């Protein structure tokens, strides 16, 4: 495996080590951005490298997009967090010590996620994912408010149990592979397993899939395993919320997808479609209804993340070239859009000095910039053109209706319910007479502008390379 690939992993971890030693939040913040930028460059660099795989790492059409996406959002989130954390320190919500530790953790988390994405080894993938989870747990607790600690503790417990179940799934996968590939490392290498899918021990594989579904499903935030997600999003610092929604959920889903590919490739294993469809629809409906009762702006969008993860899972459950393609597209679009929304929300919460939706009114009067950012973001996430989410939802719903009309009706119902809730809150926040207090806030608009531009472009035009990757991956997903 060539150096470019290692670079993507090495840079963040090295940066984490350095940042852990450096004092002063301005410097560390700057370094944090720099490191993320370097990672982004390394990630983009991977676009040129040919697909390759060894026993530990892999770079192919399935994960390349997510790696680039990861590094990109990592960079923008770091950029955003620089200004955000600056404001937090000025208002004294966090201590400088905590911040120092925060930046180190940030890089470590990015590294861990990249490992999970690059891993060709079911064990290694597990390690990366769990490492990322644990780090985010600590960061969620950063503010040390009772709410934050409650959220972190819950995340911690549920996450760890998820970890354990996922690990048992890994063991089972190994045993399933052992029948075909003999003892030792090869039986854990994804490529080899996938190549010999026909000869795997099917019952064990099925059992493994269940454990992995529950284990990683907890990370994806599928109902009823979602409980940690809303609070972790809303009580932690906003950059982390953005990374959680934008990346960690994706990574977990990506892990699930790898296993789905595996189980699809083995002819007489169970068909995961119905299970995924059920979990997806349940999450979708549940989240849609939960949106109405939300009083906290970040929790609102956390639930919307659950909703979209549900939709994506549903799409992959439907399967077929179109639905899978749409699912992959939706993953990308959602992570870009949702993180953009969280960027806007972070500044809005700072501008209004609260996260209570009821206390945020008339933004379009007081903070036009933020209002536009939030408005476009929400319209985009609600699947309205000209943004990319519209395309993916278009594909998902049309193809579903052509095959299973009733499922499409249920999904559409849930989407409309969710849309109504989001729109209601959006109008309340953007329009009407402005609410007091409202401070000026030096928002770094670059991150969400960048994201929205990307989403907008995707809505109009997808580069052929991306399409090709997604189509190949879609075939694999069956």
């Amino acid at each position, binding site marked *: 495996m060539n150096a470019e690939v290692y670079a993507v992993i090495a840079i963040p971890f090295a940066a984490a080590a350095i940042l852990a030693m450096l004092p002063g939040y301005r410097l560390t913040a700057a370094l944090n951005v720099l490191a993320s930028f370097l990672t982004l460059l390394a990630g983009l660099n991977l676009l040129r490298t040919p697909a390759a795989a060894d026993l530990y790492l892999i770079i192919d059409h399935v994960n390349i997009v997510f790696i680039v996406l990861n590094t990109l959002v990592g960079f923008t989130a770091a950029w955003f967090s620089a200004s955000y954390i600056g404001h937090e320190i000025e208002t004294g919500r966090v201590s400088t010590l905590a911040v120092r530790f925060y930046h180190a953790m940030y890089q470590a988390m990015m590294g861990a996620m990249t490992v999970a994405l690059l891993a060709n080894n079911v064990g290694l993938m597990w390690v990366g994912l769990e490492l990322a989870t644990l780090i985010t747990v600590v960061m969620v607790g950063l503010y040390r408010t009772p709410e934050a600690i409650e959220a972190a503790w819950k995340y911690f417990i*549920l996450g760890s149990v998820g970890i354990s179940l996922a690990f048992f799934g890994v063991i089972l996968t190994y045993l399933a592979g052992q029948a075909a590939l003999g003892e030792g490392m090869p039986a854990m290498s994804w490529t080899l397993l996938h190549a010999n899918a026909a000869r795997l021990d099917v019952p064990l594989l099925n059992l493994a899939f269940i454990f992995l579904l529950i284990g990683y499903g907890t990370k994806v935030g599928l109902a009823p395993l979602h409980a940690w997600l809303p609070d972790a999003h809303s009580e932690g610092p906003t950059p982390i919320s953005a990374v959680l929604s934008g990346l960690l959920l994706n990574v977990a889903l990506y892990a699930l997808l790898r296993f789905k590919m595996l189980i699809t490739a083995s002819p007489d294993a169970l068909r995961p479609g119905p299970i995924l469809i059920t979990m997806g629809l349940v999450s979708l409906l549940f989240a849609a*209804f939960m949106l109405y*009762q939300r009083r906290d702006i970040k929790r609102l969008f956390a639930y919307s993340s659950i909703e979209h993860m549900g939709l994506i899972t549903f799409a992959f459950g439907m399967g077929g070239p179109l639905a899978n393609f749409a699912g992959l597209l939706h993953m990308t679009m959602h992570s870009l859009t949702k993180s953009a929304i969280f960027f806007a929300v972070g500044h809005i919460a700072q501008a209004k000095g609260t996260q209570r939706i009821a206390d945020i009114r008339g933004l379009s009067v007081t903070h036009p910039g933020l209002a536009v950012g939030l408005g476009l973001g929400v319209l985009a996430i609600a699947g309205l*053109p000209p943004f990319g989410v519209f395309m993916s939802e278009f594909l998902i719903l049309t193809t579903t209706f052509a095959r299973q009309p009733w499922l499409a*009706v249920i999904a559409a119902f849930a989407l409309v319910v969710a849309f*109504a809730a989001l729109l209601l809150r959006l109008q309340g926040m953007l329009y009407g007479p402005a609410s007091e207090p409202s401070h000026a806030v030096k928002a770094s608009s670059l991150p969400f502008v960048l994201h929205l531009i990307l989403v907008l472009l995707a809505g109009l035009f997808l580069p052929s390379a991306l399409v090709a990757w997604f189509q190949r991956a879609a075939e694999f997903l069956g």
Partner: protein
Amino acid sequence: MVDFADPLIRMALVIGLLGSATAVTALLGRRALVIAYPVCIVASTIAVVTDLSVLLANTSSTAHLPIGLPTIGLRFRLDALSALFGLVVNLGVFAAALYGLGLDRQSELSPRVEPFFAAFAATMNVVLIADDAFAFLFSWELMSVTSWALVLANHEDAEARRASHVYLVMASIGTMALLFAFGGLAGPAGAYDFATMRATTFPPALAGLVLVAVLVGTGSKAGIMPLHAWLPLAHPAAPSHVSALMSGVMTKVAIYGLIRIVFDLIGAPIWWWSLPLIILGAATAVGALLYAVLDEDLKRVLAYSTVENIGIIYVGLGLAIAFKATGLDSAAAVALTAALLHVIYHSWYKSLLFLGAGAVLHATGRRDFAGLGGLIHRMPKTAALFLVGALAISALPPLNGFVSEWLLFQSILAGPQFSEPVLRFMTPVVGGLLALSAALAAACFVRVYGIVFLGRPRSPEAAAAREVPRLQYAAMMMLAALCVAGGLFGALVIAALAPVTEQLVGARLPGLGTGPTPLSLIAFDLARSTYDAPTIAVFVAFSATATALLVHWVSNRRTRRAPAWDCGFPDPSPMTQYSASSFSQPLRRVYGTTAFSASEEVDMPTPGETRPARLTVVQVDHIWNALYELPAIWLIAVSRRANVLQFLTIRRYLVLMFGALIAFLILKAVWL
């Protein structure tokens, strides 16, 4: 190398102009706002010319851009049907933009309106030329979003916020339905381009499913009952020239979607497809007017009357389907022509009326009947033009409203030719309902005009009203002229429609010059029916002037101004004149008691009491309560229940997780 001979290139230019106007006004803000309306005027002019040329030459050109859906791309097609609706849209845009240009440059120049106005115009044009499902829905949804933003223009008003919310939610429901429709038409393989859909023939079951989806999808945007509820909320809330666009034009775009899918894409119709259209349409035509005739808000009344006209159009389309499905092509042509004619004409007089309402609002700052009156003295020009619109929408000859009405009745007269008993039964019923709605429309607009423009002013604002600026007047003038001309020269318009009817039902009406005079209208053949508006107009004008002259000649021309006859109780207060509610009281008693279970409570103080007597009217909007209020309540209730899950203890969450695991494991143990 672009050649502007290609109509699509010209449409691209139009859309480009509008899009850039949007971009510039949005980015530069107040400084750039002035350019929005001029650009819209230029663009719509080009578009009108283009559409007209395409319609008359009956050409059809296509284009294909390598963006949009992968492997499908964006496809565009401009044929006679698109051109026809393009005419409707762009004439409306032209008038509205002209009116907007006349708006007070300081106060009403708003960064919340201009950018979206241009974008709105652009999206409507794109919908009309879209030739694949993605392009269609993309622009369709964009159309909803931009108009939503326009409704929110005066966002301080809580009513406007509520209206816009209801509107966009309804729109998204519609979009979902259309997604289903196109999903069904495209099939699992995802053949999203219209050309393929045209080529394929669908099994009846699927086609029926698609039809239902289309009815919901386009109906929710066109405002067919019971999906109309957003319309009387949203249209009044928007700035008046935007209301004119939404009511006069956007609803027609929805009709276009319906025609495009049902007549063009699905393929050969089955007779029972017509039933939902006919029944819903007829019910809407009457029901909406019952709302309108009892309502107390000028713009809301206009919105309800839009709903009514949509109903009439639906009836026409339904009859066309029925006739076509039973092989009566010439009758189908008559019905379809009636529907299309109504589309065009309604867009004219409804825009005119909304602009007039805008003028009233602009002059008095009031929309409620209780605060208007006597404006014919203060703003004579507007009053005259509004009168034209009011008479036209009441389907009174020789104005244009009557032409489409007449054709529709002609097509109903072909009802006995149906072989299907159901249709034979339906047509006279529909005929009766249409007749009722025509009469109700007359009553409704006599009421509107009488209350708003005639009589004595009911509020100081109305008493101090001033005539609108010249440009607004010009916009209304243009539309009024169109209404009159459309009434007199309907035959010409119908001749222009021939290509479309040829394309959709494969038949056309008897052409020009087959009647007694070149301009007389003939539905089937000379023996069966003729209507000659110009002759009648000349006739009436002649006899009216002749009589007037004669009478003035013989009579002594003395005219004395005196106070109105007051029955011996001199009371100058305008409160003594008939109010809107008192005007509609007989109608309320006759129709309202059944439709809205309306009731009156009279609180009559006993002699000696000083408090005033009080009469309160109670009306119930059953549709709203049953189909909008109830689901909303239910939704909130469910979400409250579900919200318990936000506040469980960690242990319980673990139980949930564990439960899921065990459930799956048991499933596995049992089945695999």
